[in-house]
């Protein structure tokens, strides 16, 4: 297996690890902001997966220069999808943080267990 192939697997594994790290934070942390950070990590792992699959050996960014013949381009489609996904991610994050702020105002804490005790 050549270097590129190894790197391919390595990419996917890193994706898996980051995904799990993020999810772990979401599941196991009590602090709501920490949960949100974990969520954003979790999501960016998925971005990595998509972008990894768009790479073409010896390819360049899919921007067609005039008059240059026979270039290889990497796959533009996953990039488009991830552009969308990134913005979706940040939107969710903003909303979540707004909620956290309000929760902090109503409950005086942002630790989940304390909030549950409060009600």
């Amino acid at each position, binding site marked *: 297996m050549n270097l590129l192939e190894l790197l391919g697997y390595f990419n996917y594994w890193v994706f898996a690890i980051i995904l799990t790290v993020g999810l772990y934070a979401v599941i196991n942390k009590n602090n709501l902001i920490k949960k949100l950070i974990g969520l954003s990590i979790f999501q960016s792992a998925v971005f990595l997966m998509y972008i990894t699959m768009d790479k073409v050996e010896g390819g360049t960014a899919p921007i067609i220069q005039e008059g240059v013949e026979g270039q290889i381009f990497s796959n533009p489609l996953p990039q488009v999808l991830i552009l969308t996904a990134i913005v979706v991610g940040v939107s969710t994050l903003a909303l979540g943080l707004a909620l956290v702020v309000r*929760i902090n105002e109503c409950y005086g804490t942002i630790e989940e267990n304390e909030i549950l005790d409060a009600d």
Partner: protein
Amino acid sequence: MDLLAHLPALQVVVPMLSAPLIVLLQPRGLAWAGATASALVSFAIAVTLTLAVLDGQTLEYAMGGWPAPFGITLSVDALTALMLLIVTGASAIALLAAKPSIDQQIELERQPLFYSAWMLAMSGLVGIVVAADAFNIFVFMEISSLASYILIAGGPDRRALPAVFKYLMMGTIGATFYLIGVGLIYMMTGTLNMADMEARLGDVTDINPVLVAAGFITIGLALKAAVFPLHVWVPNAYTHAPHMVTVFLAACATKVALYVLIRFDYMIFQAALVDHQMQFALFAMPLAILGILVASAVAMFEGNLKRLLASSSIAQIGYILLGASFVSIAGLSASASHLFNHALAKGGLFLAVACLAYQYRDLRLSQLGGASKRMPWTCAAFVVCGLSLIGVPGTAGFISKWLLINAALQSGPWGWALVAIILVSSLMAVVYIWRIVEALYFQPPTEEGDVVAEAPLQLLIITGLVAILNIYFGLFPQVPLELANSAASLLWEGAQ
């Protein structure tokens, strides 16, 4: 192109574009009027589309004129039409009734944002329903989710906030899982168009990623659809949301996710994953049965009215999944018709709850004494919808129960056991509905005494209307049944 050809796009665009406009509508009531108008328009569009597809044809619409699989296409078939009717109908009805209740629960200056969020939620759900492109579904799923977080966060007391946060967490995880699954499939097929996926998954040799993808998509959507073990966000979210929001979301939100799930499992994975029947029998059916029994049991001992109904919603989702898990035409049409009938029954119930909440601050059963005296019409409507939920003959609920039992009988050796389970759960439904009825009718009245103090007429009329619809579709269910049957046969062809 004539107007009819544009309808699939307009179905999404009308509510979507009305959202920003509504933000600008400041003066009192205008925002509500705008939202209602646009909801009614899109309901009309949905009806037109339904009439167009009743004869079993499928409408395709190529966004930007780019053909599938390169561009994004919308497709409307019988099942889609059914869902469109449910979503737009629920939204329109809820909005028509909403004004008094919303005025009570949300400050006037925040209302434009609220109604605009409502429009976004609706357009998101509609967008999911009509989309024929896997990634597009993700985008609109996010629109609807974000919007519904906003709607629920409008809830009166502070407990709404943690509920929304939990919903946001689980919803985002679900969406991201779905995204991973779609990514894996895209990786193996190189396409995002669902029909195209189905075609190309056939000749995928390395099955592992597809299996994992199926797992991710199923789990992700199950999270959004509140299928049994993943339902934990539902009770709080429904309980603490503004009452009209509960009407809208309980009627259609989870069902849309379930619809996508069924579509994926029947249309796309069927070709790739051999022995689908087994897969369903192993996973979906036990979950469905557990969900039905556990959630009903929880509802039997729940003290808060809205929470009780929320648990029953989880059980009803179980019914729909159960029907689908028979992997037979009969089962599918049972599911499809239950999608419709449960929306009707549960919508009506939550409308009645909204009426009650107008007079009663505290919605615990123990606090509702003498309601039948103070709000006789509301209670009558509640009883009718409750009977429909139980599945008493003559109401809409009975039709789908009957279909479901028939399907169970045909579903092989275990048929009788399934019938038994369905009947037992129906009896549980009798119990928890009757607990409410007794609370409403035979409990010593609270200090307000028994002067008639009904909810505002606007709210009341709509509630009564829905109750009547429950009976009407129990006696004349031809149209929804026709839709359900053609939808079922459609899915069935997809599965073969």
